[in-house]
């Protein structure tokens, strides 16, 4: 199960890398610049989510921040 899931993540990463061969010019990227397309709406809201999931679950990380440390939670 773990091996299959890891393989899926790797496959997605490779797919994203392969797509890098296609260059979308800047004048065709207006939809990508829409705030709705952001993976995280803003840093303060992202921190609120990290506070919830980092203190109530044992599985933080993967979002550019350390998994644990910096607070009295685990």
């Amino acid at each position, binding site marked *: 199960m*773990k091996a299959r*899931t*890891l393989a*899926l*993540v790797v496959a*997605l*990463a490779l*797919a*994203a*890398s392969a*797509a*890098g061969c*296609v*260059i*979308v*010019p*800047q004048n*065709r*990227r207006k*939809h*990508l610049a*829409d*705030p*709705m*397309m*952001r*993976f995280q*709406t*803003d*840093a*303060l*809201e992202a*921190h*609120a989510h990290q*506070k*919830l*999931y980092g*203190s*109530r*679950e*044992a*599985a*933080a*990380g*993967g*979002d*550019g*921040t*350390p*998994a*644990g*440390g*910096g*607070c*009295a*939670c*685990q």
Partner: protein
Amino acid sequence: MSPLALLALLAAVEPTVPQYDIESLRVRYTQYAQTGLGYQSAAGPPGKPGSEWLRVEQPQAEITARLGERVTERVWIPVDIVTAASPDHSRYGKPYDAVDTVTTASRSTPSATLDTFTTYRADRATDLTMRAGFHIEEPFESWIVGVGASRSFAEDNTVVGVSANQILDWFDRFDLDGNRHGRATRSTTNLNVDVTQVLSPTTLANVAYGGTLQAGELGNTWQSVMLDGGARGDERLPGHRFRHAAAARVAQWLPWDGALTLAYRIYLDSWGIAAHSAEGALAQRVLPGVVLRASYRFHVQSAPGFFTTAAAPNGTGFRTSDSDLGPFHAQTFGGAVVVDLPVARHAHDLHVDIGFERYVRSDSLRVDVSTCGLGFRF
């Protein structure tokens, strides 16, 4: 040139001071209202899980300023006011006997962080970032330093980012009777890599990995473990933990002026915990500047081999009854209204949002999260 002429020339040349412009100012207020039961909490009848009731009030403020053409400063101050950070317990049959009698954490613990990020634009495609922060709460202090870099390739279609952080925690050590036993320390070393890729004029993808190595005292020292027979003993955790998390995210613009974002994350660590999280959010612009957002998240995790709700009283190995380390699945349902309005006179953009989320765990824990944000972009 005579010395006097040289001095006169230097005096005539005015030093160029980079202009300091505030780019944005944002504030956010979030409240967490938690209910439920957990085996690590002694705030319950003997032999039964105790209450995990608590409330967190969390104001945050952030200022982003530009210093000249190349330097951007971000100063971020989150504050947490936690009620019942360590619940009162009934170890001796007294329902209001606080385990950490030296502190006030069983009633209320304010905590605050000052985090600063300085970004230097080395060239058109490369940003370098330095981070420094300090966190304080009773009876806990923490220092944070970090560095990061990002570089764009292929006409900004690909952005690669790396960052590293080092955190040192320093806190009081207590036993279950509330006696203080000096200080404990914890080190957290973290490395992150992420790649964001434009896949099409309407599709964006991101993959990320974060590895974290923790060493030292990895518990809070006063958390209790349910023993066989109903009594309570101390929690014992390994002194090291190596944590890996990888995530893949896709954002797709929708032709009816909406957007769909999907994310999947896998987590594995050296304690034997494995977790999977899947998340989706749908955003829809209903009026110019007004967006409705709905989100759903599913999380499932396994427990470490030393998790127990009935530890042997004379056991000497690792043990925990912390329900946050236990096996469970959790769902989060959320919704938000986001308003972005141009305000020509005072600021270029006014942002307001209000949202609510309900986090429900299979072990009965529930957290209601209410949040509202206000921001100005100048």
